[in-house]
């Protein structure tokens, strides 16, 4: 089963590498990994999508916690959460298919970010399942190139309060 894990890590040299190395060293699955800044300067948030049985996921979470640069690890799988992924998808078109592609783009609430005389590039954002659906629909037209950001995710609700709580020394 797929699990989405969110972590706060020190924004230091090698923190990302430590997480990635741990996954390869332990032989855990890594479907996607994304990292970016948070509202706090020296802390980054990573979102990891992994999979495995309960024992493996338990180990993944513990091993992530064990890293010195990791401040907080939450398995979001069982939580109310917002998950988003962004995809840039370049699709081939012929004369007749351009309108169809624009319709598909509208259905997925995407935007056209580039076009030339052979292909059109769509930007589609949403939960990973929506991206997968868009990819499936676009596949028959001939996907020329695709870039996916990997999942970013957050717990729903009082995020700001939560992050402050997470960083309160008494909770660390």
């Amino acid at each position: 089963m797929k699990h989405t894990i969110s972590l706060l890590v020190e924004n230091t040299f090698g923190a990302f590498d430590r997480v990635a190395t741990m996954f390869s060293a332990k032989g855990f699955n890594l479907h996607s990994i994304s990292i970016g800044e948070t509202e706090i300067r020296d802390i980054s948030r990573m979102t990891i999508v992994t999979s495995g049985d309960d024992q493996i996921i338990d180990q993944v979470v513990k091993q992530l916690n064990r890293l010195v640069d990791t401040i907080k690890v939450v398995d979001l799988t069982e939580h109310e959460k917002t998950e988003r992924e962004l995809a840039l998808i370049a699709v081939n078109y012929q004369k007749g298919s351009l309108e169809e592609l624009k319709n598909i783009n509208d259905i997925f609430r995407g935007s056209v970010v580039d076009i030339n005389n052979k292909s059109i590039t769509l930007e589609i954002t949403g939960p990973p399942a929506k991206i997968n659906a868009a990819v499936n629909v676009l596949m028959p037209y001939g996907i020329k190139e695709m870039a996916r950001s990997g999942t970013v995710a957050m717990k729903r609700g009082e995020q700001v309060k939560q992050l402050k709580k997470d960083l309160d020394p008494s909770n660390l």
Partner: protein
Amino acid sequence: MVNKTKLSGAEIFFECLRRENVEIIFGYPGGATLKIYEQLHDVNFLKHILARHEQGATHMAEGYAKATGKVGVVLVTSGPGATNTVTGIADAYMDSVPIVVFTGQVPTSLIGNDAFQEADIIGITRPITKHSFLVRDLAELPATIRKAFFIAFTGRPGPVVVDLPKDIIGSSCEFDYPEEINIRGYKPTYDGHKNQIKKAAKKISEAEKPLLYVGGGVIMANASNELTSLARDNNLPVAMTLQGLGAFPGTDKLSLGMLGMHGTYWANQAVNNCDVLVSLGARFDDRVTGKVATFARGAYKIHVDIDPTAIDKNVLVDLPIVGDVKQVITELTAEIPAQSQIDNWWKQIENWQQECPLHYETEDGQLRTQYVLERISDRTRGNAVIVTDVGQHQMWTAQYYKFTQPRTLLTSGGLGTMGFSVPAAIGAAFGVQDKPIISISGDGGFQMNMQELITAVANKLPIKFIIINNSFLGMVRQWQELFHAGKYSFTDLSQSNPDFVKLGEALGLPSFSTDRIDKVDTILEKAFAIQDKPVLIEFKVVKEEMVFPMVPSGGSISDIMVKRLNPKRVV
């Protein structure tokens, strides 16, 4: 604010070591650490031991750390100096040994340029360190060194690498020492969960067939006395892992000796028949469990460990307690009301002891390792630090030497590093002066770090370097005989081994050799009488001896082999 004068990077480095109470460092100078060594020339508060190879220096730091409970410190140069420490770091990681390894690095402007003697040691050691630091600003050095020692020593101990670029050490800045450090991502749990401890106490007191399964964590946590009380107050049998030997007196009737692949028959039977298994500072290593599915099947498993990742990693347990094993054992002992009657359990264990005692051939007049170890055990009565290498002699040491005190067996368990014994014994000799230090190696492993004999001679360390010479890579040969069609592929050293006595003498060690049973005691007598320098003793033993009992890798207790019927058949 007091006016602060600027200090050089090297001055700051040593001032930080002084504040960490570092007494000794094991190292080897080189281009990237010249500034540090220039400063070291005028430093008086610590000893620097010049190893002959950086791997040796790292094992020395391990030996020192294991024998004393203090942090071992290594100082090497960049590139090859750093990469030579990798095996020692991996060894320390597997056996949770607190060491801090300072590596020189090329100047920051050259990092990534394939500069002379450049190696990405932080990248190379990432999966085998507890943590690591690349110092990129001299102002960060004091806090970094404090963190490095703190991380290495606390929680589940382990190796920490600190990479020091040459230009950073060559610069200077005001010395600002942090009185406190706070690492928000690193907070080891020391207090075990109270209710879990209560539950564990109840389970133990109600057990009909309880067993304590004790690992190296008990020794690291200095919890031997607490363990001894727990076992004796409740009449509990104690089985130990290789790293756990010495945590509980091997001479005590409650001791079942070692369990696992080459553990005693009765310890392995006990672990597979117990109804409550209490793991204390052990990690359910595959050399202990064999086939996981049948390990302690049916037992209620309690697991006390300071490292949460150790829990449910190899074997799913019923009751985990994350915490400092010393505190947990103390609370556990206080919570156990009265142990239920377990006389029947002890009778069963005694039956197993009689059914299949440790045994070796004594009738044919040939010298065997087991006999040598019994003589050493008799002579020292547990009052020595035994530093083994890896292989058959290591397992026989675990079986035949009676360890009675913690920190008296130093051995490479997790990584199984041949070449560990000689340098680790040297490190131990610098930390322990009130006990003889005895290094035991096979003829193969001895040759992996024998250059460090020079370090022992140079420092007049009274170590007894014992070589158990069977002219084979004995344990590999044993597996070849048992599982690889008897093809002794590249394990026979008889044609290529050096004359160890001549070798020892050339390096300045009084050296002895025998293949006779009746000479063992006289040679030991002579060797132990020499107190002002190291000695070398070669025991030429039977070539194709087997270590029994043996539970084959991944096997169950039902697969245990106890003797060789003929060269190709074992039951």
